[in-house]
């Protein structure tokens, strides 16, 4: 264990609040619960903390968008959940629970059974995600047979159905073709079919459209959304495209410097962003029908992992920064329907900042 683990005592109230939010209305645990997960990379010049005490949950069938700039720790969070961190990266603290069962400390063989079977994953680049030496059918059948008892011919039938489902024409012929015989968009459809082939309960889509042509990005997102809804799979949609989030996600988590700064229902976060960073992020999205000469810009850039300032990591760029932000790290504070990691919303600061809004909840 790293000595930098913060004492639990200090953060008890915030942790409780987060814990409550992770229970759905029926009282049963959410599908995925991530609690105070910390991802570290030991390097020669000290330990880098790529994901710092991140807590969130995803309910059954829900789409959670995860946004943030490059290097904010979005992909790292996704990889950590499924146990695929590149060594020497490791989960140094916290818990990941799937359906109430802890999965971050499972032995290899057990986490392997969860991958694909319960948590599917879609990666960024469909051109390199498929093994060039095998037909798409081989890769589908292999995955299906790894996780089920289907025979070769049944698995093949299932694979053809899946290809049809993801919108590949003439699937019974295309199944015997190699990845290089498919276009980029078609390959991402194959990747989605592979991620969904044994009906996982959760799909982690790590920037699934970033490497694709703009004209087919929308198609792929729509397809992913539709299929996950039909298969009853929840989605963790990692992206830096707020437009995609706005269209597909139910809730959104905004990440900055390896931390979640704001999480809440997507409409609430977009219309009424509370964290100054989210606010700036929303301001920087061009919108049709708005007559702005210039988009808002957040001054400066995200700090490197080696240079994260004490207190709130956003404090050097924050327009509303005050003294406390430079020393104390804010935890997620429930405000209306969302949770925000910002001292502006702390009860004790209510008098000094941002009108009465922060005082209204507690």
């Amino acid at each position: 264990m790293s000595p930098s683990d913060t004492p639990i005592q200090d953060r008890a109230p915030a942790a409780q609040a987060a814990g409550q939010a992770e229970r759905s209305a029926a009282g049963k645990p959410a599908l995925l619960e991530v609690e105070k997960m910390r991802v570290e990379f030991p390097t020669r010049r000290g330990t880098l903390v790529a994901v710092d005490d991140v807590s969130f949950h995803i309910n059954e069938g829900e789409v959670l968008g995860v946004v943030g700039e490059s290097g904010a720790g979005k992909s790292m969070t996704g990889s950590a959940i499924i146990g695929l961190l590149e060594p020497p990266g490791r989960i140094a603290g916290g818990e990941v629970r799937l359906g109430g069962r802890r999965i971050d400390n499972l032995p290899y063989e057990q986490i392997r059974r969860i991958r694909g079977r319960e948590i599917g994953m879609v990666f960024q680049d469909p051109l390199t995600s498929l093994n060039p030496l095998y037909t798409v059918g081989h890769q589908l059948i292999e995955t299906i047979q790894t996780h089920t008892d289907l025979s070769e011919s049944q698995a093949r039938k299932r694979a053809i159905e899946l290809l049809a489902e993801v919108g590949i024409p003439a699937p019974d012929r295309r199944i015997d073709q190699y990845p290089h015989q498919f276009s980029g968009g078609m390959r991402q459809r194959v990747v989605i079919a592979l991620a969904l082939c044994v009906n996982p309960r959760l799909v982690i889509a790590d920037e699934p459209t970033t490497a694709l042509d703009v004209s087919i990005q929308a198609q792929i997102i729509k397809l992913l959304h539709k299929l996950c809804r039909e298969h009853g799979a929840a989605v963790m949609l990692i992206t830096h495209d707020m437009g995609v989030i706005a269209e597909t996600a139910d809730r959104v988590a905004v990440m900055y410097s390896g931390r979640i700064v704001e999480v809440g229902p997507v409409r609430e976060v977009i219309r009424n962003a509370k964290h100054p960073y989210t606010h700036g992020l929303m301001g920087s999205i061009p919108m049709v029908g708005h007559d702005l000469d210039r988009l808002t810009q957040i001054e400066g850039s995200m700090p490197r992992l080696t240079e994260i300032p004490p207190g709130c990591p956003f404090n050097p760029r924050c327009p509303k920064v005050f003294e406390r932000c430079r020393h104390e790290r804010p935890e997620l504070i429930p405000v209306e329907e969302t949770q925000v990691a910002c001292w502006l919303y702390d009860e004790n600061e209510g008098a000094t900042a941002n009108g009465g809004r922060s005082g209204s909840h507690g």
Partner: protein
Amino acid sequence: MFAFIVQRLFQAILVMLVVGIISFALFRFTGDPVNNMLGPEATIEQREALRERLGLNDSVPVQFINFIGNAAKGEFGLSYRVGKPVEELIATTLPATIELVFVSALMALLIGVPMGVYTGLKRHAALSRVFLTVSLIGISLPTFVIGILMILIFGVWLGWLPTFGRQGVVDLGVWQTGLLTLQGWSHLIMPAFTLALFQLTLIMRLVRAEMLEVQRTDYIKFAKARGLRNRAINYGHALKNTLVPVITIMGLQVGSLLAFSIITETVFAWPGMGRLFLQAIQFVDIPVMSSYLMLMAFFFVMINLTVDLLYYAVDPRLRAETLGGAAH
């Protein structure tokens, strides 16, 4: 596919013709074989008769056409040294060399690939370091030193294995094999290992480097994310992707195994083609030398053809590019 093979065969014939010209040129530039064969006391009549018999009185183009024609029929003329047809000499020595090369190539593959996979997958294991250190010896010691060391250890000190020659040979008519008896194997194992050691370490290091490379690719990460079994990922997905470079190098190496077998055969007094060739050089036995040259060229051409065909079997992308059958 068919067009490709035909094209390659045509190229092969062209290469063989060029090698034929070079082999033939050996006869023209290396003195008069008649002196060597008959000695200084022979009479002019004897010399003339021999010249006539060897076909040395014909014009150069006629000689060349005869040479190529005979070579195509598998006839390479008379050995100056032994006075027997060269093809007979080859028929008695070729099986020894082929078996030696075949067994050592197999050793190199069967030991080298698993070692490469192991060191590639378990980079920090103690055994991996041992393998890598030992492989340095294999890669840096010359073949003859290894051969002599092995003779010293296993033949002289331990007395486990015979130190020279090839015995326990079973005659199968056209082919004399040493692979059917224990005695045959006991004679074969040391020279084969000596010959294999360099290739083995080369293959091991190559497979290791390729495995490390492939481990980093997205499709391996995606295969892991799909929950495939380790076995399927390591051997099905990763190893297969390392095969193309391994095949390339292996093809080249089988060729050089044939060439390096000269040294190993000399060290172990192995009655193969390499020894035949060395004796031929000492005696300026041109027909043997030139047919050795052509035979080796033939092997190289065939190996390259096989390598090209194996590429096609392994990598579907190559099939699409040359045949233009891709549906992009």
